[in-house]
């Protein structure tokens, strides 16, 4: 295990040439990851060599651009074991989830229906549902977690007939760990309940297989998995795709139009109005290549163990409250904590002064914050460029902050 871990790190780190020389202990990969050189190169190659419209021209440069775009789609789809047709590119995980809320759920949901999300959802998987419920007379319900981070999936009402959709994060951006997505999707399918999985925090390190999972939708962003900014993806089950409308209308999405009728193109094109983001797609595919160059499970093992080491080091400090890990256990790429007597913002600032980049705040998770009764917490989150060497500088920052502020 430890051997695999060292291999992962040494193989990875050489590919982050800019990060390596920065002297910074970057502990905010849950917000966005650093980019390996191969991803940056893929983006620039797009601009240099394939700069032409996708799916719109018949000259060679455009043909090459179109097929590069579709090859990238296939690669990202295959990464989560989906067929290319079932994967659409969006600008972000946020757009992906909003697309499901506005383009699918809105026309299917009825007053009295319930949408369940968990206590630990990011605002991206909370606000669209809250708003939808307000507009449609449906009800938003919260699956609670206990003090050890276990999701209460036997909660009263969750499996009722009135439950329309369960929208659940795979890994929490604050509590880390992993939620029991397989169990939830299996049970939901048996009850005729639809499922959306927010995989923003998991795709970077946990292998995902949408066929095995059996979810209806799965959303993620490239920039949190070593890929470029401004592009995300949405997996849509084939059946749901037929029930879905595009969020945006425009070029490239229709077959024909008359005063009476807009005839959409086949999926995935009908859901991607506007000029496709080719360089983004190329960078996205390069990120998948980057991840797939590691043995299956190796990254998850490496960052999970490293997270555990961070937790253990923090647990030894007597002035720290650790938040639980989602799903219980200790294996996690995200660790949140509060230092007694030190406001998280002051803690983060002191760490920053020591070249340690950790986060403070509510982390776009107002639901969890109000439940935990914390206004803010500190969070560290790991990428494969991180190392146990990053632990000591953090501990020193915590001691320094306690000296100054507590």
């Amino acid at each position: 295990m430890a051997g695999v871990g060292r291999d992962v790190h040494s193989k990875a780190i050489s590919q982050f040439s800019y990060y390596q020389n920065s002297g910074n202990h970057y502990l905010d990969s849950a917000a966005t990851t650093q980019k390996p050189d191969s991803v940056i190169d893929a983006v620039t190659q797009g601009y240099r060599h394939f700069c032409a419209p996708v799916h719109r021209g018949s000259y060679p440069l455009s043909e090459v651009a179109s097929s590069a775009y579709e090859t990238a789609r296939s690669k990202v789809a295959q990464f989560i074991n989906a067929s290319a047709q079932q994967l659409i590119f969006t600008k972000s995980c946020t757009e992906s989830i909003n697309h499901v809320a506005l383009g699918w759920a809105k026309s299917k949901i009825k007053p009295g229906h319930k949408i369940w999300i968990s206590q630990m959802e990011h605002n991206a998987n909370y606000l669209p549902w809250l708003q939808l419920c307000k507009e449609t007379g449906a009800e938003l319900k919260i699956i609670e977690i206990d003090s050890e981070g276990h999701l209460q999936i036997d909660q009263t009402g969750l499996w009722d007939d009135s439950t329309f959709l369960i929208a659940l994060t795979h890994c929490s951006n604050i509590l880390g760990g992993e939620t029991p997505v397989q169990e939830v999707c299996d049970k939901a399918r048996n009850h005729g309940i639809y499922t959306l999985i927010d995989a923003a925090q998991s795709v970077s390190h946990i292998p995902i297989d949408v066929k095995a999972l059996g979810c209806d939708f799965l959303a993620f962003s490239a920039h949190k998995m070593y890929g470029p900014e401004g592009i995300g993806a949405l997996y849509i089950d084939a059946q749901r795709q037929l029930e879905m409308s595009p969020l945006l209308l425009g070029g490239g999405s229709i077959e024909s139009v008359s005063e009476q009728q807009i005839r959409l193109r086949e999926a995935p094109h009908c859901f991607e109005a506007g000029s496709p983001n080719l360089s983004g797609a190329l960078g996205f595919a390069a990120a998948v290549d980057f991840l797939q160059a590691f043995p299956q499970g190796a990254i998850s093992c490496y960052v999970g163990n490293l997270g555990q080491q961070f937790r253990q080091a923090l647990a030894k400090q007597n002035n720290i409250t650790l938040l639980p890990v989602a799903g219980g256990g200790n294996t996690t790429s995200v660790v949140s904590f509060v230092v007694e007597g030190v406001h998280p913002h002051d803690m983060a600032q002191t760490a920053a002064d020591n070249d340690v980049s950790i986060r403070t705040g509510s982390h776009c998770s107002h639901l969890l914050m109000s439940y935990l009764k914390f206004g803010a917490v500190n969070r560290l989150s790991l990428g494969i460029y991180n190392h146990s060497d990053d632990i000591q500088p953090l501990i020193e920052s915590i001691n320094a902050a306690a000296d100054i502020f507590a």
Partner: protein
Amino acid sequence: MSNKEHQAILMEHYKSPHGLGVINEKHTVGKGVNSLCGDEIRVGVVVENNTITDIKFEARACSICIASSSIMTQILTNKKTSEVNSFYEELLDILKKNDVSAESHRLLIPLSNISKMPSRHKCALLSWEALRDACKL
């Protein structure tokens, strides 16, 4: 045969297409539209005892679409409707996989020229899709 010869055969079909003609009330009609290209095609078939006894097409279309339509009417006239799909699949393989073999239908082979131009696959397939539409396949 070389690409040049294939090209010459396609041009021959384009200049003097088989099956291009007027669709009347005896025909069952299927339609195809290529939104990228702006092409439109109507294909009419007469089916008797599960056999296609006549195919006509009307088109505002490019040379490849017209050549492919011409080839289609040649191949499928007097074939069983149950045979349409296997020829269609064969064409798909030729286009998408450039899969030409000794068993390939002689008349389809020139269309292998199109395999390296993905944006024109749709042109070559349009009339076939319209025909399948007409035959309710």
